[in-house]
Each structure stands twice: as C-alpha cells, then as structure tokens.
C-alpha cells in the first residue's frame, strides 16, 4: 500500500521550480517600480470620486511600504445620502 502510494504520487519538485521561476521573474522586474502603490492610491480615489462626493476628512489612506511587501489601506466613510449627491 505504502509502496503503491510512493509511486503513484505526483512529484512536487517540478511545481516548486515552476512557481519560483514565475514569482522571481515578477519580483526582479517589480523591484524598480516603487511608485506603483502611489499610482494605485491616486487612481482608486479618482474612481470613487466619480460616483460620490468624498469629504477630505472622511478619507483615510494608509500606506505602508515594506521591504518585501507594501500595503495600501483606503478607508472611506460613506454618508447616508452619498448616492443622491453624486446624482
């Protein structure tokens, strides 16, 4: 039974190799483009303001640029009548 499992099981090393090749290709290319997060923030805010008025003090944008990962948190308080205002 054990022997059977040993031979029937798919090899995992090729998956590791492939995942690494894809990932590292991205990471090597991305290391130069540190402005990506800033661009994302601006575009997200522009997209939202198309549909509703956002009060400046009701928007909180937190950006954390780490060595390995960056995070972007956009927190917007949407008032009850936001939809009507935009329309």
């Amino acid at each position: 039974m054990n022997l059977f499992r040993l031979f029937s099981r798919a090899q995992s090393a090729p998956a590791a190799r492939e995942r690494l090749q894809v990932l590292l290709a991205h990471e090597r290319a991305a290391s130069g483009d540190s402005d990506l997060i800033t661009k994302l923030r601006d575009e997200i805010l522009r997209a939202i303001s198309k549909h509703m008025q956002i009060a400046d003090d009701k928007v909180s944008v937190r950006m954390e640029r780490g060595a390995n990962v960056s995070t972007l948190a956009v927190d917007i308080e949407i008032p009850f009548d936001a939809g009507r205002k935009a329309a």
Partner: protein
Amino acid sequence: MGKVVVVTSGKGGVGKTTSTAALGAALAQNGEKVVVVDFDVGLRNLDLVMGAERRVVYDLVNVIQGEAKLTQALIRDKRLETLYLLPASQTRDKDNLTAEGVEKVIGALRHVFDWVICDSPAGIERGATLAMRHADVAIVVTNPEVSSVRDSDRIIGLLDSKTLKAENGERMEKHLLLTRYDSLRAERGDMLKVDDVLEILSIPLLGIIPESMDVLRASNVGSPVTLADERSAPALAYFEATRRLRGEDLPVSIPGERRGFFGKFFGRKAA
C-alpha cells in the same frame, strides 16, 4: 591583506551559523589564520555553535563603541590556534552597529587574518546589510525549498547593489552553498534538485551539504562539524567547499548518505 567573506541567506534557519563555524574551522585546520565574526547583534549564536559561550567577555558592539580593544574581544579557539571568534552582543540591539565602526573593525581584522568570515543575521535590514557591506566574497546559503530560494534571490540583489564593491562598480563574487540537501528526496522528485536551484539563482556552486544528523550532534557539543567528526558526510562536504573557496577547481560531488538498516531507522528519527 586577508579576504572578507560574508555568509548570508535572507531566510533564517538555513545554516548560516553552522556553515560559518564549519568553513572557518576547516580553513584553520589548513593552517590559515581565521576570524569568524558574529553580526547577529541581540541574537548571537556563533559563540554557542563554536563552544565558546562561556568565554565571552567583550563583543563587537563594545569594540565599536570604544569600550574594549579588538584584542580583548577576540576569543581564541581552544582546539585550533589559528581560529578566533569575535562575538556579537547579546544585550544591545543592532542599532549599535554603525557603518564607520564596522568599517574600522573589518579593516583592522583583514590586516591580521587571512580570512574574515562574517556571519550575517537573517533578514535584509541593517544588520544584514552591514555584514555584507565590506565583503570581497559572498556565500549565499540556501535550502532546496521555495521560501529559501526566493529569499536568496533577494539577497543576491542586495549584494549587487548595497555593498561597497557594487557601489564602486566592481563585481561581487558570489557562491551558492546548498545545505540540508537530501539526494534521495531530490531523486524521487520531492525536493528541488541542485540544477534547479542553480538555474534559478544562476550563481556558481561552492558546495552541497547533505542533510545529516551529524550537524545537530556537532552543535549539541559546541563543535564546528568539521572538527566534531572529520569523516562525516557534512564535514567532507565542507572541506570540499573550503578547497573551492581557496580557489581550487574541483568537480562538485553530490553527497548521497549511505544508510544501513539501522541508519534508516535512527537516521530518519534524528532528522
């Protein structure tokens, strides 16, 4: 003028300290004058792996801050008279390492020793970048495992940009040391093979250290693995890597541990 080597990896737990101790001892066993320097300020361990933990009086931070002379902080190995250790501080944090201080210490050491081997902390922050800053040669320690390979790729990028050599437009000499390799599992297709890792990272191979319980056994008793059992598979692999580090052109052998009936039973358990 001696050579400054940094042993680095990005990821923790892949064998930087074990390899620093083993390569340092192997070079000293060849009669070369060696100092191993622990850069892991706050989490020092090289002293423990070398069996010198009870002899630490002063450390790297004391020297940098002018509280002790370099000669006071250096600990001479009890087994090999050309092997020395410069421990890291256990109580301070890595902010106590200054770029100028590190430069001074490394500069002084390379005048006296043939080899200055810097054991880098894990990560890519201050401690790690300072450890690699003055290196002539880098040894990238990698396990045949996805997260370790990814972090090694990151470290290779830093070696090519954040070191003095890189800033001066020179090429940093980099070598791959593949540790915890299990040729049986690689053969079975359940572990990245040597060639896979080499192809992905594309730096030359210094050596392949087999997964072995001899490594744990050596650290248990506070002895570099090349001293604990000179005939063990990892010791032989480290000796081979050392010869390559000294410039010999050797074909790399893939160590396959021979296991007898009992070895199969007990070897697995220990690993």
